[in-house]
């Protein structure tokens, strides 16, 4: 079966906001098929470029594993310091050059909008593996796939997001991606790291229910289907006294899960520092390591879809 995807302006995968509900469901179904049969030679004879202008070992290895499992070949770099961009070559020239060699470009860049721009200057598909603080849509897709797998549905779920809701791009993208599925959101964050107003306006406009909390309480946990934890980073605070006050407030430990729902699962985009205590790891509700594994299937789905190869 051949899948096509109806993005607004290209066959590239740049932002989760470009994906319709059907696009997301289709990608998730495809990811599920890859989970059952991970090794398929759909990309035999294809060359995939992974251009990591900014290092990100975890994301790169996940993409490269996905390509290898599909029988494709990988070219690329994992650090811009070894490329011509360190000599001052423009992104446009690098993309044009690599487009002559590869069938798809998977790129991570420190500048925001880099992937969108790249998708406009080449005819081959671009997969955004993160552009600065802007988008990281393959992470969002693996998050959504993880939610689907653990809950059996994406509809009508209560999703609690905890930690840095101001700068956390995974939070913003997940919110956008899940907005198609009638969710209820709970946002738990210190005052300084509250969800930006533009996302609240987006939810108001789309009739999405949400509540905001500064306290990470039992009540909030007990009503959740998904607990999405993120890291509160020290460098985000202008006032370090404020950081010291909150750094241990948004920490999840095993005891706090005592009266949580049976179907609750804990997700985290990783790496974690101390926001999830080690004693949670053995709780069957902890899902963050499997979540990372789902990343390979989600990325197999993305790559095969932009190249128009179904399973």
């Amino acid at each position, binding site marked *: 079966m051949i899948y096509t995807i109806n993005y607004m302006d290209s066959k590239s995968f740049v*932002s989760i906001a470009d994906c319709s509900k059907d696009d997301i469901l289709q990608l998730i179904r495809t990811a599920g098929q890859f989970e059952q049969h991970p090794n398929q030679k759909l990309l035999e004879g294809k060359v995939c470029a992974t251009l990591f202008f900014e290092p990100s070992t975890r994301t790169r290895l996940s993409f490269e594993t996905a390509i290898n499992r599909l029988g494709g070949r990988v070219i690329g770099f994992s650090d811009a310091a070894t490329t011509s961009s360190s000599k001052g070559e*423009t*992104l*446009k020239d690098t993309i044009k050059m690599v487009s002559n060699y590869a069938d798809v470009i998977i790129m991570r*860049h*420190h*500048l*925001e*909008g*880099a992937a*969108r*721009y790249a998708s406009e200057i080449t005819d081959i598909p671009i997969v955004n593996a993160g*552009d*600065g*603080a*802007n*988008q990281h849509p393959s992470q969002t897709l693996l998050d959504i796939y993880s939610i689907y797998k653990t809950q059996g549905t994406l509809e009508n779920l209560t999703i609690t997001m905890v930690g840095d809701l101001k700068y956390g791009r995974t939070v913003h993208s997940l919110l956008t991606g899940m907005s198609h599925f009638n969710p209820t959101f709970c946002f738990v964050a210190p005052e300084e790291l509250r969800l930006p107003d*533009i996302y609240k306006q987006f939810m108001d406009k789309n009739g999405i229910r949400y509540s905001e909390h500064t306290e990470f309480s039992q009540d909030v946990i007990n009503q959740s289907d998904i607990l999405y934890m993120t890291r509160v980073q020290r460098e985000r605070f202008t006032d370090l006294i404020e950081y010291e006050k909150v750094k241990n407030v948004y920490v999840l430990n095993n005891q706090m899960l005592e009266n949580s729902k049976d179907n609750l699962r804990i997700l985290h985009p990783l790496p974690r520092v101390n926001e999830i205590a080690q004693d949670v790891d053995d709780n069957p509700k902890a899902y963050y390591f499997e979540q990372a594994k789902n990343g390979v299937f989600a990325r197999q789905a993305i790559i095969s879809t932009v190249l128009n190869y179904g399973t």
Partner: protein
Amino acid sequence: MEHKKELQVAALENGTVIDHIPSEQVFKVVSILEIEKLRTPVTIGYSLDSKKMGKKGIIKIADKFFEEHEINRISLIAPSVKLNIIRDYEVKEKKWVALPDELAGLVKCNNPKCITNNEPMKTRFKVIDKESVILKCHYCETKIKKEEIVLV
């Protein structure tokens, strides 16, 4: 009133009169419309008395008729501008400017980490709220409010 008109507007046989430009924006309008590149006669009035605006600017361009998408580029800095289209010494048409849905190569993105501030390329913005003038960068998705707008 008659006297003022005589002073401010010498008759134009064919062309466009851009009226009611905020005085301080006159030269920006010239630059956005690239009027300095024209080879037809142009009269630029600056700091003229206006009942409505206190002071206003006016630009009269002979033998030039703008396309809508060209003229709409000035709507960001001069939203209340009026255009008189003159043919054979008579005002044949009056037009007002309107904010377009998208602005290309006009506004600078305020996000220093945006690709448009780091590559030799044109900026692109979607106008997501015409009433209160909110722009969204097509690339980095940063939203810019009216008072934060900086022209390229």
